[in-house]
């Protein structure tokens, strides 16, 4: 399953990105590019010269994709959910380091915004793992995915909180505070400013891996009914695209504050209710 992920996830992730762009274009009254456009883009990037400010950048870009692939492989092999989340954070940190490696003001601002974004979603992602444990008594992805317990009904608050952070993780408006799919000329694109050619291509492929991993996390909430899970993933992704196209970007202060507030309110209250219902047994 881990090897299947490493081979197939870029294809699925790229297609999702392509369909996303097509639907976005239709929502804006445009025809839009082919759904294979992300593959053309990355293919093009690998045909270009690899011009970097600092050789270390390439190393960090390679580390970023390796750790993201490792995270996904761990997840789809049914590993420990906590380890998956920590590995995911580590992968993100390599992107930040890559942006900091070049001495460029745009890159620095991008890296700082990426750090803020990590700070915004991290509490809720960890609460998601805790919620999964409370609901299914296991941190093992293989057990959570095949459980007969309707997880989403036990932890609806955590599910809503996770959807909130999903918008941040998928880099959708209103939370595209670091790297967006639309704002090519804006400062938020800073994190990839100093990458070009093949190393930028690697970062794009890493985003595809990440998308598939996040959709996999979404699956865990509906693990007891695979059909429902697939329907839910498709519907929720379409809603994400709609949100992306109907919202303006918020300030990073709001993104961090609101993400933490949501994690605190829906996440912690949900866990507290489950705790009391189970008679004080954690």
């Amino acid at each position: 399953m881990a090897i299947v992920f490493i081979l197939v996830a870029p294809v699925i992730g790229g297609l999702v990105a392509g369909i996303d762009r097509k639907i976005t274009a239709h929502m804006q009254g445009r025809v839009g590019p082919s759904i294979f456009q992300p593959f053309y883009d990355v293919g093009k990037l690998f045909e270009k010269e690899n011009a970097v400010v600092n050789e270390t950048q390439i190393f960090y870009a390679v580390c970023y994709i390796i750790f993201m692939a490792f995270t996904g492989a761990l997840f789809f092999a049914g590993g420990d959910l906590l380890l998956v989340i920590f590995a995911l954070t580590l992968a993100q940190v390599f992107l930040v380091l890559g942006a900091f490696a070049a001495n460029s003001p745009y890159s620095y601002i991008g890296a700082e915004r990426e750090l803020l974004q990590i700070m915004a979603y991290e509490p809720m992602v960890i609460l998601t793992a805790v919620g999964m444990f409370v609901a299914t008594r296991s941190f093992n992805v293989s057990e959570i995915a095949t459980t007969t317990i309707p997880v989403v009904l036990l932890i609806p608050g955590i599910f809503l909180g996770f959807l909130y952070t999903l918008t941040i993780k998928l880099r959708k408006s209103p939370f595209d505070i670091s790297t967006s799919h639309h704002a090519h000329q804006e400062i938020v694109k800073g994190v990839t400013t100093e990458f070009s050619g093949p190393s930028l291509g690697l970062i794009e492929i890493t985003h595809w891996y990440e998308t598939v991993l996040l959709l996999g996390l979404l699956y865990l909430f509906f693990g007891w009914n695979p059909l429902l899970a697939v329907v839910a993933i498709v519907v929720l992704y379409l809603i994400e695209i709609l949100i992306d196209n109907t919202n303006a970007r918020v300030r990073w202060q709001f993104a961090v504050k609101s993400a933490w507030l949501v994690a605190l309110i829906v996440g912690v209250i949900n866990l507290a209710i489950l705790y009391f219902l189970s008679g004080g047994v954690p």
Partner: protein
Amino acid sequence: MTYLAKSPWIIHYDASSCNGCDIEILACLTPMYDVERFGIINTGNPKHADIFVVTGSINEANREVIQNIYNQMPDPKVVVAVGICACSGGVFRECYNVAGGIDKLIPVDVYVPGCAARPESIIDGIVTALGILEEKRTKNVHSPQVTDNGRAEHPKRHAKGGAE
């Protein structure tokens, strides 16, 4: 099978243009013309771009910027001069601070004349540029690093005489 022609990313720089051509370039991105359907993206970042679209002519304030953008773009790359000012200096070519068209400073591959150039002709120019881009890739052309060579010469300023 090449991907270069299917995903041309553009950087657009306004060098002393009157904004007429810039508005027409932006019009290409609107639902009316929607160049994204050809995979064309306006990146605004020289390190991501394949095509350098310049409007307006060279003057003392922007010659360094144009060189900088051109030098930072990874190969293969092409330059499209949009509008008559970018092609030859246009009506401003006699001005004391205007050096002329973009080709006075960096090698230009496609000229799109017009005042202002129409979106159709801009798209046509970029599609022409794609062929040159592909040719440069197959021939493995390395673009030269451009350095400033005309900054100190101001014959017209001296010609006016007077104060000096």
